[in-house]
C-alpha cells in the first residue's frame, strides 16, 4: 500500500513536471483566439439547450399507435349479431349460394357472424342437439394458386368434397363439404399449411332442433292419419260386409219362401196356384230390388275404398318423404360446409404479421431512433472523439 501510494505520488509529481506551455504560447494563443467567431456564445447556448423534439414526437406517435392497436382488434372482430327482431341471412341459403359463384373475397376484418335463429318454440325440456357446423377461413398468402391446390388436395384427403373452387394470381376461393368428425384435424392441418400468422378462421354452429322437431311432428301427424285411414277403411269394409250380408240373408229368406211356394204349387188348387204365382212374382220383384241395392252398395263401397286407399298411399308417401328429410337432416348435421378464401398479402402486412406489436409503431420508433442519431451527430460535439 505504501509502495502504491509512493508510485502514485511519483506519477503525480511526474505529471506536474510534464505540464508546460509551448515556447510560442502567446503567439499561438493569439492566433487561435483570433479565429473564434464573434457569435460563439449565442450559438453555443442555443445548441447546448436543444433537445431532439422530433425524436420525442416520433416516440409519442409510436406509443399512441401501439395503444390504439391494443384497443383496435376488439372493434374489428366480427360484426354484431342481429337481434331478435332483425332478419338475417339464412344459413342454408348462404350455403347453397356458395356453389354457384365465388363471392367477393372477405378481408381479415370481415368475419362471418352466424345468423340468430333463437330457440323457436322448442321447450327447454328437449335438450337434444343437432349442431350444424359452418367453417370459414381466410388465409393471407403471396402464392395463392399453389396454396389453393394444396388445400384442395387436403380436403379430398380428409374425405371431403370440393363444391366450388376458383383461384387467380392473387386470390383464391374454395367451397367444400367435410365429414364433421374430420373438422378439428382439418383445421390443424390448414393452420399448419398456411401458417398460423396468416390464418384466421371462424366456425359457427346452429342447433337444428326446430327442424328436427318439425319433422318429428309431421311424422307423428302422418302416422296418426295413416292409422285413422286404416281404421276408417276397416270400418268401411265391415259396414259394407254387414250391408251385403243383410241383403244376402234377405235374398236367401225370399228364395226359401219361393222354394216353399214352388213345392206347394203342384198340390194346390187353381185359386191357390194363382195366389202362389202372384206371391212368387212379388218375391222376385223384391229380390230384384235387393240385388239392385247390393249393386249400389258395391259401387259405393268401391268408390269409398278407392278414395281411402288413395289417401293411405298419399300418407305413406308423405311418411317416406319425411323419413328422407330426417335422413337428410342427420346427414346435414354430420357434414361441415366450409369456405376458405385466399387473399393477397402485401409486404407491409407480411412484416406486420411478424412484428411484435403494430409495425407502424416500430416504424415510428425507428424513425425516432434514426432522427436521434442524426441529431446526435449534428448537435453533440464531434462524436468521432467520443
Amino acid at each position: 500500500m505504501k509502495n502504491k501510494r509512493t508510485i502514485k505520488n511519483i506519477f503525480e509529481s511526474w505529471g506536474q513536471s510534464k505540464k508546460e506551455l509551448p515556447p510560442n504560447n502567446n503567439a499561438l494563443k493569439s492566433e487561435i483566439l483570433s479565429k473564434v467567431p464573434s457569435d460563439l456564445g449565442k450559438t453555443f447556448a442555443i445548441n447546448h439547450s436543444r433537445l431532439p423534439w422530433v425524436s420525442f414526437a416520433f416516440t409519442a406517435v409510436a406509443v399512441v399507435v401501439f395503444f390504439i392497436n391494443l384497443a383496435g382488434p376488439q372493434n374489428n372482430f366480427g360484426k354484431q349479431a342481429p337481434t331478435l327482431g332483425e332478419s338475417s341471412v339464412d344459413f342454408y341459403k348462404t350455403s347453397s349460394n356458395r356453389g354457384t359463384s365465388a363471392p367477393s373475397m372477405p378481408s381479415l376484418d370481415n368475419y362471418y357472424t352466424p345468423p340468430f335463429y333463437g330457440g323457436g318454440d322448442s321447450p327447454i325440456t328437449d335438450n337434444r342437439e343437432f349442431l350444424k357446423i359452418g367453417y370459414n377461413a381466410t388465409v393471407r398468402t403471396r402464392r395463392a394458386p399453389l396454396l389453393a391446390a394444396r388445400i384442395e388436395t387436403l380436403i379430398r384427403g380428409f374425405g371431403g368434397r370440393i363444391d366450388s373452387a376458383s383461384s387467380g394470381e392473387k386470390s383464391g376461393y374454395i367451397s367444400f363439404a367435410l365429414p364433421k368428425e374430420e373438422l378439428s384435424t382439418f383445421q390443424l392441418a390448414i393452420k399448419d399449411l398456411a401458417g398460423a400468422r396468416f390464418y384466421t378462421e371462424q366456425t359457427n354452429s346452429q342447433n337444428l332442433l326446430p327442424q328436427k322437431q318439425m319433422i318429428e311432428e309431421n311424422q307423428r301427424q302422418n302416422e296418426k292419419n295413416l292409422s285413422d285411414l286404416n281404421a276408417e277403411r276397416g270400418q268401411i269394409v265391415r259396414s259394407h260386409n254387414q250391408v251385403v250380408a243383410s241383403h244376402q240373408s234377405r235374398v236367401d229368406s225370399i228364395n226359401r219362401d219361393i222354394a216353399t211356394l214352388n213345392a206347394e204349387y203342384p198340390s194346390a188348387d187353381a185359386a191357390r196356384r194363382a195366389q202362389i204365382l202372384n206371391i212368387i212374382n212379388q218375391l222376385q220383384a223384391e229380390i230384384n230390388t235387393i240385388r239392385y241395392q247390393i249393386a249400389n252398395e258395391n259401387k259405393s263401397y268401391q268408390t269409398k275404398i278407392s278414395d281411402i286407399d288413395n289417401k293411405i298411399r298419399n300418407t305413406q308417401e308423405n311418411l317416406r318423404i319425411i323419413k328422407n328429410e330426417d335422413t337428410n337432416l342427420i346427414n346435414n348435421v354430420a357434414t361441415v360446409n366450409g369456405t376458405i378464401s385466399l387473399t393477397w398479402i402485401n409486404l407491409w402486412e407480411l412484416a406486420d404479421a411478424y412484428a411484435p406489436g403494430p409495425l407502424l409503431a416500430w416504424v415510428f420508433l425507428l424513425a425516432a431512433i434514426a432522427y436521434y442519431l442524426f441529431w446526435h451527430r449534428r448537435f453533440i460535439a464531434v462524436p468521432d472523439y467520443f
Partner: protein
Amino acid sequence: MNKENLEMLWDTLTPKLYGYLVNTLRDRNLADDILQATWLKALEALPRFSDRGFGFSAWLFAIARNECRQHWRKGDREIPFDENVHDTKEADFKTEDKILVDQILMRLSDSDRELIRLRFIADLSLNDIAKLFKINPITARVRMHRALSTARSLFIKQQ
C-alpha cells in the same frame, strides 16, 4: 462562452495538453502542430459541443488523441525518445525519479502508458478516461489499479 472564457480555458488546459502531446509524440514541433490543430478543431466544433456529463477538458483531449491517431496513420508511430532533443524541461523533477519513471513507463503496455498520461498529465478523472477509452468507468478504475500495481512492481524491482 466567450473569448474571455476561452482564454481561461487555454491557460488552464494548454499546459496539460501540450505536456501530454510532447510525452505522447516525443516531438515538440509535432506537438506544437497538433496542439494548434486540436484547438482549431475544438473551436470549429464548439457550437456543437455538449458536455453530456463530460467536461470540455475531456473533449479537448479526445480531439487531441484523434489528431495523434490521424498523424500516426499517415506516418510513423511514437518515435524513440531523445531527451536532449525533445524533452529538456525537467527542472523541478529529480533526474533520478525521471529516469525511474521513464524506465517504468517504457516497460508498461501502450494502453497502460496512455492511461497514466491521461490521469497524471492531463489530470482527467477516471470517468472521463473511461469515456475516452469507450469502456466502463469501473473497468477504467480496474485498469488504472492494475497499471499502478505493475508500475509499483517495476518500481520495487528497479530499486
